[in-house]
């Protein structure tokens, strides 16, 4: 028919770009929503999300130290290499460092709300360091960091996609055994303890699972805002329960769908440009959270 060439082209686009990107969106959405749910239950705070422990900020610091610091300590990064293995490692190292600090402190401080505030403060500290670094840095390097910060679902190689999918899958599987104690935690820590939950074990376990999922996702696609915060609320709103047996799978599904939607919106039709994914998730997430706060008081947790 003479469309052979065109067919090859769209096959190439479909299999090498669109399908990997959609798979990335699905696993990022599912992973971040699960972590958001864990954080909201653990902190008994409807405004908690994957970012509250300062984990994504830690990943950001790792990347900033690598990208912008490279000028200071004379390491030359490949210019086009925004998703190099080095950035990945820096992000994972950054999030694991912040997570270790949180874990150390959480064993000293019993009050969960204090941990939440410490996480926010660590986030603020890392942002400050990033700010100072960017003051001394070259424009191209700053740009490189900014692009990572916008978040991007594209550009993942098949190997990287496999790592992302594998770790998010394992991470979500690791939540299933703690569904029962998570439900007890809905009654508060004292009741949970009286019903047989070892609070510090569950806390540390949850922190580690959340930290690894958030760290790896943030490393690959940048800090994605609002998905982890908003999706658990949407799940509760739709299913009218806070039972984790229902709300965890529901959140995973809704998170994947919403992330796919955001990705489709970011892929502006008839235009070769792709909008930064973080802008889209915030555009949809921020008004939703405000609306929830104003009109849906009883849906908090």
């Amino acid at each position, binding site marked *: 028919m003479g469309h052979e060439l065109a067919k090859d082209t769209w096959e190439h686009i479909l299999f090498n770009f669109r399908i990997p990107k959609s798979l990335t969106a699905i696993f990022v959405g599912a992973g971040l929503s699960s972590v958001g749910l864990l954080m909201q239950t653990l902190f*008994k705070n409807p405004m908690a999300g994957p970012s509250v422990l300062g984990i994504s900020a830690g990943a950001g610091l790792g990347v900033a130290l690598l990208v912008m610091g490279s000028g200071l300590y004379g390491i030359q990064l490949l210019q086009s290499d925004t998703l190099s293995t080095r950035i990945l490692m820096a992000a994972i190292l950054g999030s694991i460092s912040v997570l270790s600090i949180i874990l150390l402190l959480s064993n000293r401080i019993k009050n969960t709300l204090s941990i939440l505030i410490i996480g926010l403060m660590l986030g603020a500290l890392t942002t400050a360091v990033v700010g100072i670094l960017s003051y001394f840095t070259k424009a191209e390097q700053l740009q490189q960091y900014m692009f990572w910060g916008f978040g991007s679902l594209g550009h993942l190689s098949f190997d990287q996609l496999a790592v992302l999918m594998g770790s998010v899958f394992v991470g979500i599987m690791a939540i299933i*055994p703690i*569904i*029962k104690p998570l*439900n*007890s935690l*809905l*009654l*508060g820590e*004292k*009741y949970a*303890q*009286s*019903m*047989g*939950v*070892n*609070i510090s074990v569950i806390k540390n376990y949850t922190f580690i699972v959340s930290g690894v999922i958030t760290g790896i996702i943030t490393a690959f696609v940048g800090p994605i805002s609002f998905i982890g915060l908003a999706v658990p609320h949407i799940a*509760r709103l739709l299913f*009218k*329960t*806070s*039972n984790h*047996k229902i709300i965890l799978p529901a959140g995973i599904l809704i998170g994947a769908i919403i992330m796919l939607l955001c990705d489709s919106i970011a892929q502006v039709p008839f235009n070769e440009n792709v909008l930064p994914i973080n802008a889209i998730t915030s555009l949809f997430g921020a008004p939703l959270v405000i609306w929830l706060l104003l009109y849906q008081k*009883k*849906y*908090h*947790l």
Partner: protein
Amino acid sequence: MSKHPLHITPLETKNLGIGYRNKAHSHHVLENINIQVKKGELIAILGKNGSGKTSLLKTLSGFLPPLKGKVLIQDKPLQQFSSLALAQHIAVVLTEPLPHNLLRVGELIRMGRQAHTNWLDTLTPTDKEIIQFAITMTNTEELLHAYYDELSDGQKQKVQIARSLAQDTPLLFLDEPTAHLDIHHRMETFLLLKKLAHIHHKTIIMATHEIGLAVSLADQLWLLHDNTINIGSPQELIAQQHISKVFDSDLIRFNAQTATFEYK
């Protein structure tokens, strides 16, 4: 319901000292507590605000480590119990309200079984039977599909007692179970607790301000005053004038005949 042997002491303390400890010093609330609780007794802890009722309950249920001495649950030191093993021996109903949630009453009562179910939380026929017992005893059948958050205070208290009954423990501790309740629900709660103790052989210990109800319905009173504890049946404590010693003030006086307080 309870299958726990009669000859074992459900709860015992030896030279127990309770209070709070921080780095600099320790604050003693009560000292030298030696109690032996019998199976199937309804016990009321009485005392003014700040006399240590809640601290005592917290220590006995393992929330607060003792400063001195020990607590024995069925002859075994409390500290040796894992969280799970403890949850199979002691159920609690606290004063603090639950965080906001979207749980239905049925789900909440069922959660009492968590200390007995497997990791997937599947219910065996025995679990279902015990849950049904908890629902029947507390008369919460028609509330099962309602959201807990939307219940009245009286209904919430009943549901919490049902959840603690589903936990099927030999010991049940309640901290001011009748606070915020009207006179009808206060009486109802006390009668339910009495029935659970006397007919179903649960050992129930509650902290309360309801002196009148406690005097007429409890088997034993623990009277807290000036860092000491006085233990005895209501009749003994009234005869020895302990109650009037603790509660009489320039405003009120305890009338031993009517077991009520009157203005001076």
